[in-house]
C-alpha cells in the first residue's frame, strides 16, 4: 500500500503549540526554539545530534516533518552554518534548523538517507561552501565544473585564474 501523505494541516496545532511540542520532544537537542511568524519554528542544533534528530523529526507522530525544502549554507566569518528548512504536512508549519559547523573541518552527517532531496542540496553546499557531508552517496560538484578549485560562496574566496582550469 503506497504511503499517503497526511492531510495538510490535519494536526490543527497553532505555531506556538508546535514549538512547545518540539521543545518538549527534543529537550536538550534543540536549542533556542523560537517562533518566527507566521508559521516557522526556528531552532539551533548541535552537529553531533543532527542525524538522529533528523530521523526522529521525519517520524514524529502527528507533525512529522516529511519534506525538506532546502539546505542552505551560510558563512559566518567565524564558522559556517548549515540551515535545514523542513515542512510538515500535518502541521502545515515549517522548521528551520541551524547547525553550526567549524571552519577548520567543515564536516557534517548527511541527511540524504532521511530526506532524499537533501542529496543535491548538500552537493550544492559542498560545491559552494565546502561543507563535507559524511555518508553522502555522491558528493561531487553540481553547479561548477568538476575541476574547479575553491568554494566560491565563502567570504574569503578570491577568484583567481587558477581556480578555473580549462575555463
Amino acid at each position, binding site marked *: 500500500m*503506497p*504511503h*499517503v*501523505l497526511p492531510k*495538510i*494541516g490535519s494536526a490543527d496545532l497553532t505555531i506556538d503549540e508546535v514549538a512547545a511540542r518540539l521543545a518538549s520532544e527534543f529537550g536538550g537537542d534543540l536549542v533556542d526554539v523560537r517562533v*518566527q511568524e*507566521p*508559521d*516557522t519554528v526556528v531552532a539551533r542544533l548541535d552537529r553531533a545530534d543532527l542525524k538522529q534528530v533528523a530521523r526522529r523529526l521525519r517520524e514524529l507522530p502527528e507533525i512529522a516533518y*516529511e*519534506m*525538506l*525544502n*532546502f539546505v*542552505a*549554507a*551560510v*558563512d559566518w566569518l567565524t564558522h559556517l552554518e548549515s*540551515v535545514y*528548512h523542513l515542512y510538515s*504536512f500535518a502541521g*502545515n508549519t*515549517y522548521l*528551520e534548523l541551524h547547525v553550526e559547523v567549524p571552519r577548520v573541518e567543515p564536516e557534517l552527517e548527511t541527511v540524504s538517507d532521511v*530526506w*532524499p*532531496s537533501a*542529496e*543535491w542540496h548538500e552537493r550544492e553546499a559542498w560545491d*559552494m561552501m565546502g561543507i563535507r557531508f559524511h555518508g553522502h552517496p*555522491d558528493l*561531487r*560538484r*553540481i*553547479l*561548477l*565544473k*568538476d575541476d574547479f578549485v575553491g568554494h*566560491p*560562496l565563502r567570504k574569503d574566496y578570491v577568484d583567481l585564474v587558477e581556480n578555473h582550469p580549462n575555463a
Partner: protein
Amino acid sequence: MPSRFETEAPDAAMQLALDRVRASEEAGRGSDMQGLGFNQVVVNMGPQHPSTHGVLRLVVTLDGELVKDVIPVIGYLHRCKEKLAEKRTYYQYIPIVDRTEYLASMNCEWGYVMTVEKLAGIQPTRRAEFIRVIMAELMRIASHQVALGTFTADLAPLGTALVFYMFRDREKILDLLEEASGARMMFNYFRFGGVRYDLPDGWVEKCRELMARMPRLIDEYESLVKDNAVFLQRCIGKGVITQQDVADYGITGPNARASGVPLDLRRTRPYSVYPELDFDVRLGEHGDVYDRYQVRMDEMRESVRIVGQCLDMLPAGPVQAGTLRAPYVIAPPPGECYIGQENPRGEYGTYIVSDGSRYPYRLKYRDPCFCNLQIFPKLLRGNKIADAVAISGSMDMVLGGIDR
C-alpha cells in the same frame, strides 16, 4: 573508453555512469538483448538537445531502448547569482532575480521582494497587492502555455499546431505585461512596498477583454489533444510520482498536485490578498504525465478566474508604499527570513540573511525545478526513451532556476 564520437575523456558524470555500467555488468546484470550484442551504452543527451528544455545534460544509460539510469548534469547556466547578491544592494538585485525562472519572472520577483519586505518591515499598498496578484497570475498562464506547448511539441515535433496556438496567445499576455512594465520577459517591475508603475490607462479593459476570451482559447487547446487516443496512450500511466516521492524529493507545484497532494502555497501559506480571492486548487489523482498536463490546463482556468476577480476588486490608491528615493537603499535590520510563494513550477522563495548592511549577507534560492529535477533518475528508469522525453517534458524544467 571514449566512443568514436567523443574526442576527450569522459568527465565526472560520464565516468560515474560508465562505472555504474561496469559495476552492474560485473555483477552479472548485463543486457537483456544479448542476441543483438547490445550492452548497456552510455549516451550523452545535451546540453544542447531539442528534447531537453534548456541546457540540461542527461547522461543516459541505455539498454537497447530502455533507460537504465539517468544522471542529470546541471550547471551550464550557472551565473553565480547567490554570490552576486552579496555585492549588490537589495534594490539593485531585483533585475537579477528576474532571470532565475525567466518564464515566470513576475513570480520570481515577488518571491524575493516579499522576503525583503518581511525583513525590512515594509507593508505594500493594497492596490499594489492586487496588481501583484494580477501580474503573477497572468505570468502563470503564460508560463503554463510554454510548458504545455513544449510538452506537446515533444510528443510530435512540429507535428502538432498546439505549441503555435499557445505561443500566439502568450504574445497577447506578454503585450499586456509589456504595457504595464515596459519589458516582455525580465520585467523589473516589483519594488519593496509595491510595484514600479501603475497600470496604464485602458489596461484594465484590455486585460478584462483578454480574460473574457481566454477560457475559450483554453478550451481550444484542450480540444486539440484531449480526445487524441495517441496522445492519451503516450501519457496515461507513465511517469507516476507517488505521494511518498513528493515528500521525499520536495516536489511542489503542479507536479505535486497532480499526485493528489493539495500543496498550493496560495492556500496552505496564504500571502498577499489570496485569502480574499475565490479559486480552487486543482488536483490530479494518479500523478502520471496526463495528470500533470491536466492540472496545468486547469490551473490556467483558475488563473483566469483570479485575474477577473482582482480586476473587479482593484482599489484606487498609490502603488508604492512610502517614498523610496535615490539612492534607493534599504538596510533591513539583522535577521533572516524565508518566504516561499507559488511559482508556476512549485515553491519558489529566497532565504535571505541580513546583517544590517545594505547588501544581503547571504541569499539562497529555493528553486522548485532544482528539487523537481532530483526525481528524474527514479522517474525515467525502466521507461523507453520516447517515454522519457514525454515525462521530462511534463515536469516543466527551467534551467535558469536550477542553475541560478
